[in-house]
């Protein structure tokens, strides 16, 4: 480009070159502007979209721009100065004066030649005027002679209207004279001599001189003579050279301003092209340099968003290439670690699910407290045993759980104290009066110490996290069953150990009476009779007691068969109506209840015991009445039948409320205390339940709930019962 500028300044054909430089430069600028605008627009769009790398690219472009702009501005400024001074130096005053002097010298020389020619032509005109009367042939010869003598190229005579009278030329082929223009004849009419230096070609110049003859005075039609004389070759060449040089210099002086303008425009175009090209290159280089960094940033962002394992293109082997390679290795390792962690997490979740399934299906209640004694895990058995919802428990601390005044407050206080004790293992028992009545709970606590060195490592020590696991069981039924079993064993042994000697005792007493009665008399006989009778009566009484124990200890082994409970109630009531007069037995039986599977004789004994108990409680009542009602427990599932025996007696003494259904518990002086125990035993054998509560008229209500299908489990019954536990005195409930 510099070469082109220098050439445009020095070459004579600079116009063509400069013109094309201008055109190409303009097109180049337009193209560069177009690409620069498109790149700028693209960069701006990326910047607006917050694309990674756009800011860095913009910064680098700005830096490159200033790095280019500063030296470019300096060079451009000094180039303009140099150009102005360089062009001005061409037009030196001495050169200009020399050109003017040479032109003046040429003009002076030509003027001298012209004066000589004019003098010759005017002498020729005088000569012709003197010979005007001669014949035309002689006159033509004179003209030819004059032309040759004066060294003229052509000599011709003209009339006043421009007609040629005589003509002589040095060129034999020239048959017509070089006719002057109208301007020449105008000069002639003014009686003036016309002179003109005519350039024929760059090396041939001629003088055309036309002088008047004043023919009017001669009475002839002569008017003027024209002489053409070629300038000598040496003079013509020199004159032409001076003319050319002068013209070129004048032209340069005239084009001084435009030349500066053109050169500045050309220089500006080239400079602008270079600048734009530099900026475009800066944009390209910035993008190329930033691309790996952008890729790294993008890859890092993707990894931060969880897209592990993304690989970046390794386009170079320089430091950025090494960085990209390191990133790819890191990404691969993170991906592998993530897969391992994912597998571990899946395994953990499976184990957690398994643990939850175990906890859900575990009959024991399980609590898990974190290091802040906040409840984290509560299985369904725990909420079921306590009768509390998960949502009301989870997330609360042990101390917070103690604060509400609910039935499980004592339970949580025990847990809170266990946690605070920091003992590794502890165990305790608790009797809770809860939603299901009196509950015996066995509670075991364990501290779990987890080493958290994977997550938090301090310089001093590894932090230990302590969690607490509480496992508790409702052993109410178990203890009751153990108690029942113990009582059964006692009853069986009593029946076995006591019943056997009773008969010999009775027989021996009767034999003593029979043998001795006749051998004694009087008072001794009476004593013997009373004593033996007492023995027999007490033996009978003991037999009854032993039989009762035997009945209690002996489970119902008869097969269950469909039974019309209402009919059984009617039969038993009719049987007792005459024996317990004046007690009125009122039946309120639901005829829609279905038959149940039960042992009729066992249930008959249950009814007998309950009616007898009720009649005993009504001995001091003025208008004694026993009400027996049956109904379907529709509120629950419809699979149970409720049988209620209510009296209007004095109710159950408070001191035996809790152990009403235990053996040997009775408020009567002569009672064995096995009646209700047998009732409870039979009802439970039928998978039912029985409990007592206070009636509406201060009497007692014995509530039997028997399943229609007696194959149901005891635990199922218990859950169903709990649904309407609000109307039950939990202290009197059994079965």
């Amino acid at each position, binding site marked *: 480009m510099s070469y082109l500028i220098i050439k*445009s300044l020095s070459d004579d*054909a*600079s*116009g*063509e*070159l*400069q*013109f094309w430089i*201008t055109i190409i430069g303009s097109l180049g600028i*337009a193209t560069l502007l*177009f690409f620069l*605008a*498109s790149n700028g627009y*693209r960069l701006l769009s990326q910047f607006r979209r917050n694309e990674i790398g756009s800011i860095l690219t913009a910064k680098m472009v700005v830096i490159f721009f200033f790095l280019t702009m500063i030296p470019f501005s300096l060079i451009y400024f000094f180039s303009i100065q140099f150009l102005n001074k360089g062009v001005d130096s061409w037009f030196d005053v001495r050169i200009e004066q020399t050109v003017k002097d040479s*032109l003046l010298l*040429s*003009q002076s020389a*030509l003027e001298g030649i012209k004066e000589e020619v004019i003098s010759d032509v005017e002498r020729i005109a005088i000569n012709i005027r003197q010979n005007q009367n001669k014949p035309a042939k002689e006159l033509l010869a004179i003209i030819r002679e004059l032309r040759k003598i004066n060294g003229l190229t052509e000599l011709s005579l003209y009339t006043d209207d421009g007609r040629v009278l005589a003509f002589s030329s040095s060129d034999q082929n020239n048959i017509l004279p070089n006719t002057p223009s109208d*301007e020449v004849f105008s000069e002639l009419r003014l009686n003036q001599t016309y002179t*003109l*230096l*005519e*350039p*024929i*070609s760059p090396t041939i110049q001629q003088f055309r001189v036309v002088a008047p003859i004043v023919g009017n005075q001669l009475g002839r039609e002569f008017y003027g003579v024209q002489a053409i004389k070629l300038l000598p070759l040496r003079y013509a060449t020199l*004159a032409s050279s*001076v*003319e050319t040089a*002068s*013209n*070129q210099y*004048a*032209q340069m*002086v*005239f*084009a001084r*301003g*435009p*030349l500066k*303008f*053109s*050169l500045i*425009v050309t220089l500006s175009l080239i400079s602008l092209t270079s600048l734009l090209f530099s900026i475009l290159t800066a944009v390209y280089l910035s993008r190329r340099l930033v*691309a790996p960094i952008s*890729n790294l940033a*993008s*890859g890092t962002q993707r990894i931060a968003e969880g897209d592990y394992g993304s*690989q*970046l*293109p390794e386009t170079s082997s320089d430091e950025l290439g090494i960085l990209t390679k390191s990133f790819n290795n890191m990404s691969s390792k993170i991906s592998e670690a993530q897969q391992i962690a994912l597998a571990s997490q899946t395994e953990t979740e499976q184990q957690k699910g398994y643990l939850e399934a175990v906890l859900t299906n575990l009959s024991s209640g399980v609590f898990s407290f974190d290091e802040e004694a906040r409840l984290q895990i509560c299985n369904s058995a725990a909420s079921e045993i306590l009768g509390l919802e998960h949502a009301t428990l989870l997330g609360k601390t042990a101390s917070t759980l103690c604060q509400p005044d609910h039935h499980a407050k004592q339970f949580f206080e025990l847990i809170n104290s266990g946690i605070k004790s920091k003992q590794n293992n502890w165990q305790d028992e608790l009797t809770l009066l809860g939603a299901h009545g009196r509950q015996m709970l066995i509670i075991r606590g364990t501290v779990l110490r987890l080493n958290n060195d994977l997550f938090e490592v301090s310089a001093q020590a590894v932090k230990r996290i302590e969690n607490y696991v509480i496992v508790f069981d409702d052993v109410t039924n178990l203890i009751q069953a153990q108690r029942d079993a113990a009582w059964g064993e006692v009853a069986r042994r009593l029946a076995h150990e006591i019943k056997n000697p009773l008969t010999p005792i009775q027989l021996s007493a009767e034999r003593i009476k029979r043998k001795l009665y006749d051998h004694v008399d009087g008072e001794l006989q009476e004593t013997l009779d009373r004593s033996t009778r007492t023995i027999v009566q007490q033996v009978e009484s003991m037999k009854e007691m032993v039989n009762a124990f035997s009945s209690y200890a002996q489970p119902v082994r008869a097969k269950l068969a469909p039974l019309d409970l209402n009919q059984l109630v009617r039969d038993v009531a009719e049987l007792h109506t005459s024996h317990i007069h004046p007690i009125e037995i009122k039946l309120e039986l639901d005829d829609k209840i279905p038959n149940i599977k039960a042992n009729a004789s066992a249930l008959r004994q249950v009814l007998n015991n309950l009616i007898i108990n009720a009649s005993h409680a009504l001995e001091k009542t003025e208008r004694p009445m026993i009400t027996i009602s049956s109904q379907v427990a529709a509120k629950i599932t419809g699979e149970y039948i409720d049988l209620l025996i209510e009296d209007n007696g004095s109710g159950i003494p408070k001191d035996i409320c809790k152990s009403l259904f235990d053996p040997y518990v009775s408020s009567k002086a002569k009672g064995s205390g096995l009646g209700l125990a047998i009732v409870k035993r039979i009802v439970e054998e039928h998978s039912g339940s029985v409990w007592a509560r206070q009636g509406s008229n201060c009497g007692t209500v014995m509530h039997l709930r028997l399943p229609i299908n007696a194959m149901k489990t005891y635990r199922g019954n218990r859950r169903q019962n709990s649904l309407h536990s609000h109307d039950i005195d939990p202290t009197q409930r059994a079965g």
Partner: protein
Amino acid sequence: MLTATKQPTSIFRMLVVLLVLSAILIHSIGTAKAQSIGYDNRGLKIDLSEDVQAAIDSGVTLTFESQFAHAKYLIFFDWHTEFARHEFQVTRHTLSNRYLVYESNKVEPHIFSSTRETMTYICQASLSSFSNHIAKHQAQQLHLPSKHKMRLRLSKTKLPGPMRLTAFIASDWDLDSGWISWQSDQL
């Protein structure tokens, strides 16, 4: 794997727009309104500006071009087919203080004492040449259209190099008659 961002297609649309604008600009330059050479009273007249006059007096050679064309009307547009061109080179002879006109088909120059005479001669010679060409073509081919076009202008591209850029920018150098339609009887 990352992929390089592709150039948006809008770049090509912008390129097309740029080309169309360039074509319109070139067309507007080519059909610029004629100035300084007018047609009046069945003759052409050239009015030289001061800059052009000064350029001639400073020895700058000016080239006038006269272009002759047949006119056609096709699909709502006037089309013309150029069939001849004539050039006049005007220069000043400093030693004789005369203006010389070199024609493209002649060796010896025409000499004039003033620029007015010179320009008058150029106008007349152009019209004469145009008339001769039309007559010649009409004599040869009778089916040619009777409508013709002529244009006389100063050729800026044949100016001396340093002046060319200025001449393209400055309106003083816009010596152009534009395309003038002529009927045969006008000649």
